[in-house]
């Protein structure tokens, strides 16, 4: 009897300890990150939305239930994965190898010997030596790409493959449903799209971004151990095959998913908690690279446009003249002996293709073919070194300022009073260019106010304010544009507005000075109850980039308003900004029926 009681006590103690170990494991960072659990407004929930990813009915919200059910499935081999979703079926160990590894390494389980054909093939084809975080710079022609994009590059160990194998890339991408325009934006903002992890050869991404969309790529090789890389390969198999999530443009987007994936592989890396409400690709690069021990190297992949501009800059005057002659549609190129000229022409026509949906037509295509043939006939030019295209350091996103800016200042509109400002994102034309596209402004959730005798007053709120300047040249007929949505109380009268405009930008002195005209139309809503009005504006301005942190901006506009019998009114604006070490001093003078001046000191913050 005593021995029976003793056995029951020991057994209960062992079961209790086992339960405690299971519970502890289910609450640990490694399990939470492997299953992508996060604390949200509605409580703990996995980012993964697909039911097939979980064994427990409550698995997406209950880590212990999911760990218990996953463990049972991995131990017994049942249920086969995918069965309930009508998918091809797989043993749980083969379907979720990272999870099986967790059971073995953390809970001490012995795994059943199972032959996993597909997984074995996956591992054989992806023996990686390292991973890289890749940032693609902004693409101004697609609203979904204004903030850039991040994905991971899988660097294949060429010594471990029997056949030549390219590097691969994994990205988290939305699967659109065919909606366009406003509905596309609305559905992207509200999580109506699903996002999936996609694996493609890296050369596909290079062509897509660097060649077709003219986006520079920055690659940061991550400092990961061989074991961490193995875990990545296993977890990637799980995600590519079984995971989808709701895609939200601003937070649960490509960049956040990449951070979440890295945390699943390296639970010690605390990345997603630094992301903030709006997750920007720039910001995620800074989150990862902030700790320099995480990075081995940074490499730039210049876009077609960057390479073309570099090639142009390297031509002397006589070659520039030859280039213009070569680019005439029916020019005879058989007597051209300059490789740089022909290569500049080749890049020019490739750029033309990106503007014409990938195809040249008729005489342009024939002429392009003749240029290619002539260049090939010229052969290797031995006396000249191979051209190199170095992005330099200035566009690296990890060196850019934080997206958030807060400022204090002084306003004088006849009487001096304090002013304040707060901008949630992202980059103004007058901010330090380093780490950003030089001619692209994206401001959102930007308010400025002042304090009069009794209380603070909102002077202006910009929900979004985007300006894209693309310098025009004889070889590049760039289109510049702007969009703004907001509300202003100064200048009076108060009104809300939506404005859009487009025009021309000329770059002078090596693009250090931009002179632009962006005529625009603005739908203006004055006070409630009053009729909506339409404003048409001419808009001429100049941006002088004295240095990356020193800018001068001057603008003059004449506006004709429908609710004022189209009488014209002048606006003038001049601003001077000096930025250094995440700070900025700005002085501005404005005229709109009266003068007002503004002096401010601002600080850039990380925004997380």
């Amino acid at each position: 009897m005593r021995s029976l009681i003793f056995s029951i006590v020991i057994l209960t103690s062992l079961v209790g300890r086992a339960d405690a170990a299971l519970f502890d494991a289910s609450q640990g960072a490694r399990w939470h990150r492997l299953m992508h659990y996060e604390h949200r407004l509605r409580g703990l929930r996995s980012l993964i939305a697909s039911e097939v990813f979980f064994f427990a009915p409550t698995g997406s919200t209950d880590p212990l239930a999911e760990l218990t059910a996953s463990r049972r499935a991995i131990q017994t081999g049942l249920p086969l994965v995918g069965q309930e979703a009508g998918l091809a079926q797989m043993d749980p160990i083969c379907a979720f190898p990272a999870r099986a590894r967790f059971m073995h390494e953390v809970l001490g389980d012995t795994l059943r010997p199972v032959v996993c054909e597909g997984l074995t093939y996956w591992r054989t084809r992806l023996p990686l030596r390292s991973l890289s975080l890749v940032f693609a710079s902004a693409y101004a022609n697609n609203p979904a790409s204004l903030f850039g994009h991040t994905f991971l590059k899988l660097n294949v160990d060429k010594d471990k493959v029997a056949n030549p194998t390219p590097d691969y890339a994994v990205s988290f991408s939305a699967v659109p449903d065919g909606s366009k325009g406003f509905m596309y934006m609305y559905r992207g903002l509200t999580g109506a799209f699903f996002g999936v992890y996609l694996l493609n050869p890296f050369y596909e991404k290079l062509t897509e971004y660097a060649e077709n969309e003219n986006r520079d790529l920055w690659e940061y090789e991550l400092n990961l151990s061989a074991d961490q890389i193995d875990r990545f390969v296993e977890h990637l198999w799980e995600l590519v095959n079984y995971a989808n999530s709701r895609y939200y443009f601003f937070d649960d987007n490509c960049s956040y998913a990449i951070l979440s994936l890295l945390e699943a592989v390296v639970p010690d890396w605390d990345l997603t908690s630094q992301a903030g409400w709006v997750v920007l690709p720039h910001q995620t690069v800074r989150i990862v690279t902030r700790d320099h021990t995480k990075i081995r190297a940074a490499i730039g992949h210049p876009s077609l446009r960057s390479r073309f501009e570099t090639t142009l800059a390297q031509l002397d005057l006589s070659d520039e003249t030859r280039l213009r002659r070569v680019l005439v549609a029916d020019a005879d190129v058989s007597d051209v002996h300059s490789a740089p000229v022909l290569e500049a022409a080749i890049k020019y026509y490739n750029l033309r293709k990106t503007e014409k949906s990938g195809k040249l037509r008729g005489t342009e295509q024939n002429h392009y073919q003749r240029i290619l043939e002539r260049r090939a006939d010229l052969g290797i030019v031995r006396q000249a070194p191979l051209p190199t295209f170095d992005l330099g350091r200035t566009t690296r996103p990890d060196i850019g300022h934080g997206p958030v800016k807060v400022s204090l200042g002084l306003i004088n509109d006849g009487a001096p009073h304090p002013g304040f400002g707060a901008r949630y994102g992202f980059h103004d034309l007058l901010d330090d260019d380093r780490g950003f596209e030089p001619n692209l402004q994206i401001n959102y959730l930007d308010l400025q106010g002042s304090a009069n005798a009794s209380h603070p007053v909102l002077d202006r709120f910009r929900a979004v304010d985007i300006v894209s300047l693309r310098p025009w040249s004889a070889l590049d007929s760039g289109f510049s544009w702007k969009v703004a949505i907001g509300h202003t109380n100064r200048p009076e009268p108060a009104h809300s507005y939506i404005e859009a405009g487009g025009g021309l930008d000329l770059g002078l002195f090596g693009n250090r000075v931009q002179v632009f005209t962006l005529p625009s139309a603005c739908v203006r809503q004055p006070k409630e109850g009053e009729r909506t009005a339409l404003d048409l504006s001419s808009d001429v301005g100049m941006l002088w980039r004295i240095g990356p942190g020193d800018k001068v901006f001057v603008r003059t506009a004449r506006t004709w308003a429908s609710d004022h019998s189209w009488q014209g009114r002048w606006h003038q604006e001049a601003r001077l900004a000096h930025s250094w070490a995440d700070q900025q001093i700005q002085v501005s003078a404005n005229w709109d029926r009266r003068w007002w001046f503004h002096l401010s000191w601002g600080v850039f913050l990380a925004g997380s």
Partner: protein
Amino acid sequence: MKRIGLWLVLCLGLTAANLWAADGSSGCGPAWYVFKDNSLVSSSLRTITNGFLAPTVTFGMTTGTSNCTKHSIVLIEQQKNHYVAVNNDQLQSDIAQGHGVYVDQFTALFGCGASETAAAVLQRNYRTLYAQPEGPQAVVNRAQLIISRSEELAGQCAA
């Protein structure tokens, strides 16, 4: 809606019958699950990134070895064809110029590595490579012939 989907499927099938024939997977993975439709339309939509639809995206993309292996690792025997299909314009430019990332990656698929000699050999044979009829398969076959017959590249390229 189903009729439109069927029309799209038929069109895709007719225009790319040879390519789709290689797609032996039964379709799995949550991107398929999202559409609850094991169709070729799902297959093409699955690859949209940032609103950009990649051309002939599932060209030789499956392993063909087992179920639920619908992922985008290119079959070994299709790597060269896939590379040319995706990067034809860039590769053609690089071959004409005798240097560049794309010709280096292409010659690496033949086991040549990032070789200036291999790029120069292809450049000298540019007109042969891009003679009519054009097409990824033709370019690959001609490149294979040129590389294998080149004395300069003897012993330097494996495949």
